[in-house]
């Protein structure tokens, strides 16, 4: 039997393997390029880009907790022009689909950054970060308010032909509803899930450990939460799902495929071992061979229950 096939086509994007990196954990490309051949990634998902440069939060910005990392970087980024000038030419030297995570403070800002990036050559898809605070609308988040969620997807859909991948927030009452809304509004795939709202306190000073007080928890601590969200969403929609949340091993990734994901992304694990996405892909090939599956596609949504 020949080696199992890891290649996939997701939202029209051909990938050598189904293991991507998660936005915010691999920079814009150059940061890890000395350590990892970017061409061996399923896709390179860059850190969130807004229409204008953004400074993000004050420090401390991250805190390590048991089996996880809480981050409140605050979406610091060089803006669309900065990304196109400084980083996209570098990324285009590699044989890897480039997916750009985008965000805005308003619906109009989402549309503006989507339109600007769509005019550039060399971007495979846009991932919509809909879990950031909505400054214009008060404390609501685009990701947990169904109306705002739909408006962001519709506004970006109207200005780009690129595949759109909304990244769903984990802290919603019914993720299936958001998944269906995204599908009905023109999303091509879903990324599930983002970091989980969390906080940590210094008990001696009684101060929050993050300057932003709260942040998003990622890492192994959230993996069972993410697997459940993928499973719920996969039952509700036909568009493919990219599963993510605390993936460190091929076994972790296999859980997401079985739950219904068509691809996965490795995030926090990159900080400890930058080659984790490559190791996960190699391990998935072994797993498929051991289970006599010819392709990763045969594993998707095979939960026995």
């Amino acid at each position, binding site marked *: 039997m020949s080696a199992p096939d890891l290649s996939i086509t997701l939202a029209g994007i051909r990938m050598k393997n189904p293991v991507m990196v998660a936005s915010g*954990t691999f920079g814009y490309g150059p940061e890890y390029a000395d*350590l990892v051949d970017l061409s061996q990634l399923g896709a390179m998902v860059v850190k969130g880009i807004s229409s204008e440069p953004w400074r*993000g939060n004050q*420090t401390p910005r*991250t805190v*390590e907790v048991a089996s996880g990392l809480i981050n409140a970087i605050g979406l610091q980024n060089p803006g669309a022009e900065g990304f196109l000038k400084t980083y996209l030419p570098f990324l285009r030297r590699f044989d890897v689909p480039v997916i750009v995570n985008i965000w805005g403070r308003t619906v109009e800002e989402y549309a503006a950054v989507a339109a600007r990036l769509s005019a550039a050559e060399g971007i495979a898809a846009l991932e919509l970060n809909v879990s950031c605070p909505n400054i214009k609308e008060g404390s609501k988040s685009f990701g947990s308010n169904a109306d705002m969620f739909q408006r962001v997807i519709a506004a970006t859909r109207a200005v780009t032909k690129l595949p759109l991948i909304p990244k769903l927030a984990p802290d919603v009452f019914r993720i299936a509803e958001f998944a269906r809304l995204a599908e009905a509004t023109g999303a091509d795939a879903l990324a599930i899930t983002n970091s989980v709202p969390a906080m940590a306190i210094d008990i001696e000073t009684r101060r929050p450990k993050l300057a932003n007080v709260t942040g998003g928890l990622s890492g192994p601590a959230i993996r069972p939460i993410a697997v459940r969200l993928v499973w719920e969403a996969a039952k509700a929609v036909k568009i493919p799902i990219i599963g993510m949340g605390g993936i460190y091993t091929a076994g972790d990734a296999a859980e997401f495929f079985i739950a219904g994901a068509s691809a996965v992304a490795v995030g926090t694990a*990159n900080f*400890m071992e930058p080659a984790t996405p490559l190791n996960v892909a190699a391990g998935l090939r072994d797993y498929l061979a051991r289970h006599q599956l010819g392709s990763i596609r045969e594993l998707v949504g095979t939960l026995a229950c």
Partner: protein
Amino acid sequence: MQLETAIILDHRDYGAGYRLLRLAAPQIAPQVRPGQFVHLRIPRLEASVLRRPFSIFKAENGELALLYKAIGRGTTALSAATVGEPLSLLGPLGNGFPLDLPAGRVPVLVAGGYGMAALYLLARRLAAPGLVFVGGRSAQDILCVEEFEALGWKVYVATEDGSRGVRGLVTGPLDAWLAEGCAGRTPEFFVCGPNGLLEVIGQRAMARDWRAWLSVDRHMGCGVGACLTCVVKLQDTDGTWLWARACKDGPVFESRQIHWDRIEEEA
């Protein structure tokens, strides 16, 4: 920068609660410049998701030596690592100190506590010896004085409790030396210690139009510039500030680069 599986050659108490860790790291060790650091995966540190940064005490003959104190969860777990054990290293990281001093400058090293260990490699690599000012709470916080003296450096010690050297802060003997006219020479400062120490030395240097190279200590995440945890505010050309990454753009900055009125002390 690369990943290497180093082997522990020796791991012992160094006195005053410090541990000396010697590693065979034939790939990383020859690349190390003073002021750079390594990012270490701590063995058996359960439920941990980040590496830990360590400054480099010695780098020669394919070996690295790290000097550290077991104060947190990471360093406590590391202190149990045994000879022969493999250790995953990422490094060398960061930019390090400049080694080419303008003619006529005397290197003046200023250290708070374990900052001495990181400056020792610099002292070994600079062309000619200079002066070292070191401060700490008490005698047991003062490291490496004999090592610097063996290289021909003049060492001034200050402790807050007066148990070694003069009583008070490290700025005491330093200011006395400055007041005497620096023995007729222009100092070039190299500083490693708490951010408060960096600031007071940086201000002294800027006031006299001297240079001070400051090794900034920040909470660190990835170590390679991706996660944006360890950012520090630098002066922008328009009078405002911009973020730089201590791990990638630093950890060494010249005092004029730093946006001083906004630097924050982290716990």
